[in-house]
């Protein structure tokens, strides 16, 4: 028992200990304060922000702006050194030039392109397709229109025999008709024709139907006899009797058939009779029967009508019974619309108009007559019935023919220009006349035979129009072949001023034995033949012989006129000969002497090429053919031989000009940044902006020898305003001109937009760094120049000189200016730019960056900052635009030197300007921000090499700058956050 009590007590103690060990029950309470402890880290990406479209602004837009600084400026992407990634532009301008190779100037005008382009040029190809006019219109007339009116009539086609008694003896059936006052004859009659003929299988059916139901004796019979009696016409039997006897067939009804085309030639008088007769016998009285007899012509078909009497049947005068007049109408239209696009008028040459109707075999006494006819259209065409001639042909009942070549021009002229409707209309009428049968003595009378089967019922024929040639046509070629260039035209071009300034005459060779030969570089005549001045092209003209197309080429400036023998030294002028069926090259050139002496101002280039006559007469064109003519591969020929240069310095005025560089001044650049430009302006400067001048003369020694001992003098200066005062800073000359030394010849890319030679390593006549005139408050900067020739003389230069000059070599006396523009700004050492000022944040307002006018509302939260280890703003920068590695952004809330600096947070941070980085605020710093004003000065701070430069990659397509900021909050689990307190606040 003790043992039991011990174990039980021990068990109870164990249970109590278990519960007590688990928890301290004495401290249990309803929570009054709830706090959270966590060391969670939250990373929130704020997003990505990219700025694109910069490539266009720094690329095409900026280069366009630079090109507008002065006429004739080329802008290159300047890449002198592959390791230098700064975007630099090179502005190049010829500030002075004396042309020696005249051909180069005309290359710039690009007359070849102007002559051959699709809108304004003369290059064209035209296909003229004349329609084939060979049209046939069927004519048809149904003879049933006539025969249909010769209607059949029948007297008593249905006969009833009411009483046929069984009498036992044979009796005459005819008697029954008489006893009943009935006729045993049924007459069939056709109108108009005196004689008719049925087709071979035509029959008349006598249909007997018994109509009673009385008892009939077996021995009762009827022998029905039907016949078409011997029919006579004019006393002559024309039809043998046809009799059919039928034993018993009619006793209970039946059908008897009589052939209608039997005996002689099958003709019947138009009124013939079917006679019913026969006998009946047997039977016994008083049985009586009744019958009905019908004469059925439904299976009879007329083959022919003879002896047609048009007045027969006058008892019926209705219109539909009139057979006195029948017509075949003619209606046809032919469109010539496709000819009207080039041909203004035409006269038909050869052609045929034919109206034919075939004569059917069974037609006699029938005549067709062209009652009326007209063929009109396009104002001048007028053909009538009388223009036809008859061409008797036994196989045709009507045959009318007209040959166009036999007509006068006045009747067959087609006026396309003045006719709205380009359609030929043919109309007319053919009349059908029937020979009338008059009386018994008349041996005539029309016969209409519809053939053995009665179906040959149509008159057929056609109207045929076949136009073969156009005798002559007037065509308008002026819209196709026209080139005009000159003052006031859309394509107007002036000769460069320098041409008339320095060139007096241009020659195209010297004539000898009818040919024009060129000179060598010494002026001696060679065997080389000049191609002259004019155009070279390929021509095509497949029109028939006699249709040459004459062209007129004229230019006052170039002193040529293809229609004036005095100004067109090539024989024959400019012609596109007919019969040229493949494109053949031709040269339409002259050999004038061009004289620019009389021009005070640069003249406009005038040149016209057009048909000699606006309207061209084309002859002997065949309809149905396609003619081609055109001009292609047009080139301007300007094979000059010599040029007389005016290089006498005494006779030539100096050349003056300027280049507008106002957009390059620092003031202008910073102003473009907006209102806060002053903040930046004071901190930056343009580090370098060199300009180079190259004075050049031809490379060729022979050319150099031709122009002799020549030199250039000039004055150059920068003109600008400094603090509003106009200033001039001479870099060459001053009161007088200063000699310019010749430098090595330069080559400037024509096609490429890049320049890769390092200008600083090339010899130049002079150079100047514009840094001083661009920095500071200077504005309206202009580079002015005044250049003149010295020691020169007039001379003749032969083109042969240029034959040995290589591509790109200098062929002129010229001065080139080259300005190198690096897109780079230098920050002055230690300078700072207040970003908040630029952003327009007014620091005088009594609110800090957190929009607080006091920090009472935020300091209550300061205690929670202990729960925050740090708040960090991390950012990734994707920058292809600029480099400012020596710059940094400084956030300074220390307010050093200010009396009330204690009320600010005192935080100072510095972060990278262009690279990935972060700015971190620890818990204590956040607490400081919450318990103090936070109005830091945020500045861009530069180091020693504080240059900001635009990278060359900035102008690559799709370049951009972007940043991805991220807020990271790291909580500290050492300090719980009291939720209940926060909720109370």
């Amino acid at each position, binding site marked *: 028992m003790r*043992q*039991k*009590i011990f*174990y*039980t007590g021990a*068990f*109870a103690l*164990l*249970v109590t200990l*278990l519960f007590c060990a*688990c*928890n*301290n*029950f004495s*401290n*249990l*309470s*309803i*929570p*009054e*304060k*709830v*706090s*959270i*402890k*966590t*060391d*969670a*880290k*939250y*990373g*929130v*990406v*704020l*997003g*990505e*922000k990219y700025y694109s479209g910069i490539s266009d602004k720094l690329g095409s837009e900026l280069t366009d702006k630079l090109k507008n600084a002065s006429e004739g400026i080329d802008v290159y992407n300047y890449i002198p050194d592959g390791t230098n990634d700064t975007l630099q532009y090179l502005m190049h301008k010829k500030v002075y030039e004396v042309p020696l190779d005249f051909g180069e100037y005309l290359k710039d005008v690009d007359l070849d392109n102007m002559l051959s382009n699709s809108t304004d040029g003369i290059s064209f190809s035209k296909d003229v397709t004349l329609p084939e006019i060979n049209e046939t219109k069927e004519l048809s007339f149904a003879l049933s229109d006539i025969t249909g009116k010769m209607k059949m009539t029948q007297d008593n086609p249905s006969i009833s025999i009411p009483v046929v008694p069984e009498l036992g003896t044979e009796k005459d059936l005819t008697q029954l008709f008489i006893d009943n006052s009935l006729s045993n004859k049924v007459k069939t009659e056709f109108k108009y024709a005196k004689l008719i003929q049925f087709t071979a299988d035509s029959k008349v059916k006598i249909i007997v139907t018994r109509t009673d139901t009385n008892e009939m004796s077996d021995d009762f019979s009827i022998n029905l006899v039907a016949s078409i009696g011997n029919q006579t016409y004019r006393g002559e039997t024309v039809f043998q009797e046809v009799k059919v006897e039928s034993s018993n067939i009619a006793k209970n009804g039946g059908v008897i058939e009589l052939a209608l085309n039997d005996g002689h030639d099958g003709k019947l008088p138009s009124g013939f009779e079917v006679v019913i007769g026969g006998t009946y016998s047997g039977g016994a009285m008083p049985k009586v029967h009744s019958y009905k007899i019908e004469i059925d012509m439904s299976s009879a078909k007329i083959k022919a009508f003879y002896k047609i009497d048009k007045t027969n049947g006058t008892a019926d005068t209705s219109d539909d019974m009139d057979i006195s007049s029948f017509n075949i109408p003619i209606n046809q239209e032919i469109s010539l619309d496709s000819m009207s696009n080039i041909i203004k008028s035409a006269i038909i040459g050869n052609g045929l108009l034919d109206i034919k109707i075939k004569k059917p075999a069974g037609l006699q006494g029938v005549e067709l007559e062209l009652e009326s006819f007209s063929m009109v259209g396009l104002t001048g065409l007028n053909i009538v019935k009388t223009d036809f001639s008859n061409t008797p042909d036994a196989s045709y009942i009507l045959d009318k023919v007209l040959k166009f070549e036999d007509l006068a021009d006045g009747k067959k002229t087609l006026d396309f220009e003045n006719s709205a409707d380009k359609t030929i209309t043919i109309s007319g009428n053919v009349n059908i006349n029937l020979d009338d049968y008059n009386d018994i003595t008349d041996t005539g009378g029309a016969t209409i035979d519809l053939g053995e089967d009665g179906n040959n019922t149509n008159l057929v024929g056609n109207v045929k129009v076949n136009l073969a040639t156009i005798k002559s046509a007037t065509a308008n070629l002026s819209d196709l072949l026209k080139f005009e260039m000159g003052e006031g035209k859309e394509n107007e071009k002036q000769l460069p001023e320098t041409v008339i300034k320095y060139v007096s005459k241009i020659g195209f060779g010297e004539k000898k034995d009818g040919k024009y030969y060129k000179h060598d570089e010494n002026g001696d005549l060679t065997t080389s033949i000049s191609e002259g001045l004019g155009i070279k092209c390929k021509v095509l003209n497949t029109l028939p012989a006699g249709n040459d197309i004459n062209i007129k080429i004229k230019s006052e400036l170039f002193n040529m006129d293809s229609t004036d023998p005095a100004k067109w030294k090539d024989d024959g002028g400019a012609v596109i000969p007919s019969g040229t069926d493949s494109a053949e090259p031709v040269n339409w050139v002259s050999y004038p002497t061009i004289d620019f002496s009389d021009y005070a101002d640069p003249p406009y280039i005038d040149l016209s090429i057009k048909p000699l006559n606006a309207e061209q007469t084309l002859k002997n064109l065949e309809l149905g053919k396609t003619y081609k003519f055109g001009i292609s591969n047009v080139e301007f020929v300007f094979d000059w031989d010599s040029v007389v240069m005016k290089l006498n310095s005494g006779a030539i005025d100096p050349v003056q000009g300027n280049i507008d560089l106002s957009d390059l001044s620092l003031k202008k650049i910073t102003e473009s940044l907006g209102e806060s430009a002053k903040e930046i302006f004071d901190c930056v400067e343009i580090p370098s902006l060199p300009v180079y001048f190259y004075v050049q003369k031809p490379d060729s020694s022979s050319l150099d020898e031709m122009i002799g001992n020549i030199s250039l003098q000039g004055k150059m200066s920068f003109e600008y305003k400094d603090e509003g005062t106009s200033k001039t800073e001479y870099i060459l000359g001053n009161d007088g001109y200063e000699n310019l030394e010749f430098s090595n010849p330069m080559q400037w890319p024509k096609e490429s937009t890049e320049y890769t030679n390092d200008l600083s390593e090339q010899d130049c006549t002079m150079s100047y760094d514009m840094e001083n005139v661009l920095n500071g408050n200077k504005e309206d900067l202009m580079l002015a120049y005044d250049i003149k020739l010295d020691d020169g003389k007039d001379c003749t230069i032969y083109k042969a000189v240029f034959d040995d000059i290589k591509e790109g070599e200098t062929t002129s006396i010229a001065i080139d200016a080259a300005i190198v523009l690096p897109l780079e700004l230098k920050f002055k050492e230690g300078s700072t730019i207040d970003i908040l000022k630029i952003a327009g944040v007014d620091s005088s307002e009594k609110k800090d960056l957190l929009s607080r006018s006091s920090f009472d509302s935020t300091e209550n939260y300061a205690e929670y900052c202990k729960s925050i280890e740090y708040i960090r703003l991390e950012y990734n920068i994707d920058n292809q635009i600029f480099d400012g590695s020596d710059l940094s952004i400084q956030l300074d809330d220390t307010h050093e030197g200010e009396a009330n600096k204690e009320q600010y947070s005192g935080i100072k941070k510095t972060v990278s300007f262009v690279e990935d980085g972060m700015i971190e605020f620890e818990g204590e710093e956040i607490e400081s921000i919450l318990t103090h004003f936070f109005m830091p000065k945020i500045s861009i701070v530069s180091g020693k090499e504080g240059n900001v430069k635009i990278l060359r990659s900035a102008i690559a397509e799709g370049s951009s700058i972007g940043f*991805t*900021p*991220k807020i990271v*909050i790291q*909580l500290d*689990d050492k300090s*719980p956050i009291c939720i209940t307190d926060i909720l109370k606040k």
Partner: protein
Amino acid sequence: MTMKRIIFIVLTVLAFSAFAEFRPAKRYVELGVNVNANASENLIPVLDVLQKDLVLDFSKIYSDMGKNGFVLSAGASAEAYLDFNFKKFGIGFHGGAEVSSRFNISKDLFGLVAEGFEAGTPKNIEINSWVQTFATFSMPFYFRIKNLKLRFTPTYFLPLVYVPSVPAKIVVDHKEDGTTSINANASVDVYTINKFDGLVKDGKFSFDFLNGMDYLGLTKNLLACGGFDLGIGIEYPLSKKLDVGGYANIPILPGRMKGKVNMNLEANVEMPSLLDMAFGSDKIDKSWSMSDLEYTDASYKVSRPLRCGLELAYHPWKNWMTLSAAVGFGLRNPYGKDFSKANFYPEYDLGAEFIIFYFLGLGIHTEYTQQVFAHTFQLILNAKIIQVDVAVGLASSDFIKSFKIEGARARFGFKMGW
């Protein structure tokens, strides 16, 4: 998975009675009731919460949290019974009802507070819950063949309402470009024993569908939905001090749920980056949809687990002290379509009971049942005709935490007889 747990809970309750049979009956006739209740969570010990100055250490909560995240489970059952116990045989009639539920939030939600988040790492927050109610009617009987005692428990069970699983998912994805998307969806299936069309109208319960209902026919139909299984127990005294036995529960006929109510919820939020909102015209794009309640016919089968185990009881001083042990395993929904290896679970129960002064008994158990560790203290007051059993204990899905008060289990039993 959740459904299987529900079934497991039901069977665990039966297991209690199975273990109880291992003990000798004290009365020839017993009329009694048993009431059980349990609730547990695994987030924080209850006693830690009941502090004046409560500090929720999310870092610790998160690190201590199991992979399943936060689990809140609760259940209750009530049973009345009448047993007849004789030396050679016995029979009883038991009827009761029980409700079980479980609510689970995945660990990621607590990770948001405890660890924070980084762009490019989506957080998948899953919320899962289930509820199940059963009515049970069983008729246990036993008989002895010499020293061998055989016990059979045929049980008819009727599933009333069954919410197998309400998977709700919220995906929060803060991307590296600064945009954020929040997508949430849930599909709620509630199985009922019959199709109750129109049970909820305009957000309120409506019982209009009861009007004109054929209650007799309905009752027949409902009863036909019940399932049936058979519990078998065997015990044999190896000596006067040691009994050994075995138990098994064999599902025979699954219960069927014939009605289903379905509703789908979906919400999507697409947030542009803060920079785009501040400097651009981008706005937050929100969409929200909730489908109407859909009542459909269903045929959802619920089987109770197949259970099997061995048990022994040691009585060093006759009935004054009993040390018991049981070990076994269960297979949830063994004939169900969702059966897999995961349906296997172990169970154990170790206990000691003491009888003091004839009328007072004390007991202590440590067990792993219902996939919950529980440690209970039992007090038995036996006044011969009347007996009262009270048991209270700690419970948690985590073994270590099961010794803290994160959950509780309580049982009250009253029986009378002679």
